[in-house]
């Protein structure tokens, strides 16, 4: 069994979906009611790999909504309760989707192993970041040449370079792609210096300096809502890969030789027959999903029941190659520029 822990993109959206699913007690409730709502196992599904293997899985809605980010204790409980439910249901490997892995990491949930009468077994969970990082790298490699960017001459800026996904992307770019230059941007300078030392390459710089130089920009930072970027200063063509969460780089710049690609999204080769990705606002919800969710499915296909992606800066090139090969084998592919991202309706 694989599991996916997700949440709605907003409180209003969550209420609408709860109403559709028949969860009237919370559909009619205010935010306080949602703060007391238990996680819900919304759907069970059977998925057949391109190799013919069948696996079963469940989608758990944590009943977290982004409006709860300002209530740290609530957010913490939502994630831990959803994880407890996944474990109680006997799910072998569960991916933490959307904000849940970010909350787990940033709010130090590792110190909360005991949830009621359940001792959480971390090996049952994955952030899915290894697959996400691999998918972003593939999206970069495949889509840059399509819009006339020669990778060998390209300058790539990674915004959020010291994060779990960001550092993995940097590692891959330096070692596997032969790009001309790597610019690394992050808020904290100390880990940035450490990363540069580890990679023995890349240039540490600021966002303002990086953007005008970059042919390709990989965003893997959670961006402040107030950020303003003058697109006149960007190179043309420019490929922007929106690998952060939420995906909040607008699509409107596609027409002006600035190509925005939804990063870390994969497509399955077949219709899955589930409703859960409609909840996640995917463009083709029968096939598309977050790469982190797909990681749980891949690990289940491979009977690799371990917290494959866990903690920070543990993503090695070997792990990325392993998950990438398995991803292709079982029928996943990274979405490309021909898939126009849809604006999130918030």
């Amino acid at each position, binding site marked *: 069994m694989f599991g996916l822990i997700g949440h709605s993109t907003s409180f209003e959206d969550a209420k609408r979906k709860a109403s559709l699913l028949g969860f009237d007690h919370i559909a009619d409730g205010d935010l306080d009611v949602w703060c007391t709502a*238990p996680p819900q196992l919304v759907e069970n599904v059977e998925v057949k790999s391109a190799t013919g293997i069948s696996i079963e899985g469940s989608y758990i809605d944590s009943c977290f909504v982004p409006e709860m980010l300002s209530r740290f204790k609530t957010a913490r409980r939502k994630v831990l309760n959803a994880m407890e439910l996944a474990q109680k249901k006997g799910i072998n490997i569960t991916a933490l989707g959307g904000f849940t892995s970010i909350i787990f990491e940033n709010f130090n949930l590792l110190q909360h192993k005991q949830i009621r*009468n359940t001792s959480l077994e971390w090996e049952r969970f994955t952030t899915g970041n290894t697959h996400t990082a691999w998918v972003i790298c593939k999206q970069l490699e495949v889509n840059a040449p399509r819009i006339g960017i020669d990778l060998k001459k390209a300058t790539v800026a990674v915004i959020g370079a010291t994060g779990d996904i960001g550092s993995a992307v940097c590692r891959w770019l330096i070692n596997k792609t032969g790009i001309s230059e790597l610019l690394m941007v992050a808020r904290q300078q100390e880990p940035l210096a450490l990363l540069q030392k580890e990679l023995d390459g890349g240039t540490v710089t600021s966002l303002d300096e990086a953007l005008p130089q970059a042919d390709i920009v990989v965003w893997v930072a959670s961006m*402040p809502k107030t950020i303003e970027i003058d697109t006149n200063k960007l190179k043309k063509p420019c490929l922007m890969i929106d690998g952060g969460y939420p995906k909040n780089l607008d699509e409107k710049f596609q027409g002006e030789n600035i190509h925005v690609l939804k990063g870390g999204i994969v497509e399955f080769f077949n219709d899955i027959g589930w409703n859960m990705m409609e909840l996640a606002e995917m463009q083709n919800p029968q096939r598309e999903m977050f790469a982190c969710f797909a990681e749980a499915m891949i690990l289940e296909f491979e009977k690799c029941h371990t917290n494959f992606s866990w903690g920070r800066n543990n993503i090695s090139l070997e792990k990325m190659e392993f998950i990438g090969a398995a991803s292709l084998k079982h029928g996943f592919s990274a979405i490309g520029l021909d898939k126009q991202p849809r604006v999130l309706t918030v």
Partner: protein
Amino acid sequence: MHNELKITDMQTLESNKKTTEESNNPVCLNLPDFTTDSYKDAYSRINAIVIEGEQEAHDNYLSIATLIPNELEELTKLARMEMKHKKGFTACGRNLGVVADMEFAKKFFSKLHGNFQIALEKGNLTTCLLIQAILIEAFAISAYNVYIRVADPFAKKITEGVVKDEYLHLNYGQEWLKENLSTCKDELMEANKVNLPLIKKMLDEVANDASVLAMDKEELMEEFMIAYQDTLMEIGLDNREIARMAMAAIV
């Protein structure tokens, strides 16, 4: 032409920096001061509720046995356990030098107690099990689970032992209702509609005292809903039926 990247309205972690800082602040995990007058005052009522709750549970299980005599032995065992819990919680109060306000606690349970007695007289076993083995047990488990996180070391140890037992009790009612679901569903729904709002009111009533003990109302309610939902799920009700039942808590 000048363009700016438009960012949607969705919340980001960045925009909630304070939350992240708070999560890293160990002060948040600090225990309350168990020696203050305000703590002891609140404890005198909370402790009494717990003691009275265990006494009620003891009496209720023995009463339920009169409706299913072949379960007498099992129910007597459960009742005995509740008495043991009562003693444990009495010791918790004594340990802090608190005299439990039993008069308050009796009044606190009076409505639910009354409903149980009426159901018992009528021989409505399903209603009795819903009140005792689901609602009261889920209420107790939720409160104990929250309390364990902020209790004094002595009470923490006792409460941890009690919680383990209480899950067994929840299980008892659950099993009977599961086996008899086809015949007891209507009564279960009806009894729930009447009694779940009482639990919600009881929770509201105790919220202020609980917060003095560092027990958060939101957390209490959530814990209750988790235990309640789990049990109904185990009994064999589906998501929609559970949602309909849980509606009664939103009053």
